[in-house]
């Protein structure tokens, strides 16, 4: 088995790529996909740490995996609502460029 540090490094790399995507892209769909990528990076870290402390024989600890299930559920909710917002934005402005919806930006 690989050391846990490599799992955490993978998680950090994926999270960084996700943050970079949110920062540099202007297409709302790609930004939502990058957010999914960040949530998945956190899932990798949670599964890795759960494997690090797996409980004792007869009583496995599954806390990290329960959290991952919750993260997956929240991600599904977020995508549904986010794509709903995207559709209504496209209907009103004929574009999914986030530079055109910056009224709330300071």
């Amino acid at each position, binding site marked *: *088995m*690989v*050391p*846990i*540090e*490599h799992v955490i*490094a*993978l998680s*950090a790399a*994926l999270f*960084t*790529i*996700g943050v*970079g*995507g949110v*920062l*540099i*892209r*202007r*297409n709302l*769909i*790609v930004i*939502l*996909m*990058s957010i*999914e*990528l960040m949530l*998945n990076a956190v899932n*990798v870290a949670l599964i890795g740490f759960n*494997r*690090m402390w797996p*409980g*004792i*024989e*007869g*009583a*496995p600890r*599954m806390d990290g*995996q*329960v959290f*991952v*299930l*919750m993260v*997956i*559920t*929240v991600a*599904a*909710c*977020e*995508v*549904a*609502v986010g*794509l*709903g917002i*995207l*559709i*209504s934005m*496209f*209907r009103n402005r004929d574009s999914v*460029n986030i530079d055109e919806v910056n009224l709330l930006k300071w």
Partner: protein
Amino acid sequence: MEISAVLFYVFAGLAVISALAMVLNVRNTVAAAMSLVVTMVSIGGIFVLLDAYLVAALQIMVYGGAIVVLFLFVVMLLNLRTDDFPPVGLRLAKLGGGLLVVVVVSAIPRLLGGVFPEIPAAPTGYGGYRALGIALYTDYVLLVEMVSLLLLAAIVGALILAKRKID
């Protein structure tokens, strides 16, 4: 090197490369979504290698099967296959991104140096549906209820947001 370690590095490399392909693909949104599928399936493989079998199956079903298909549906529904918006050239974004990359890249070798002990052997039943189900419906039953409420709210919210006119 044992086979599980080799597979881990293969899946990790695949995940990182396809994630980069998703972020850096500035022309085709459908191809970006397909890269996201590859990333999700590779992460599912890594979950299998970490003995989280049920979560791996759910990861592939929910992410590779449902969420990315939802993305593709919207891309094709709105006919957004080509991406006409080049990445921002803002100084702030460049500065922030560069700083982030420097911090993470400088942290990774320290991580790889070895801070944690070896991964212990997993007990029987670890990662299976039985242990996960017992944890979900005893210790975390309140969490399950709250998440089901959240799902309901998301269904209603998505319907109202995507509706043409609220009557």
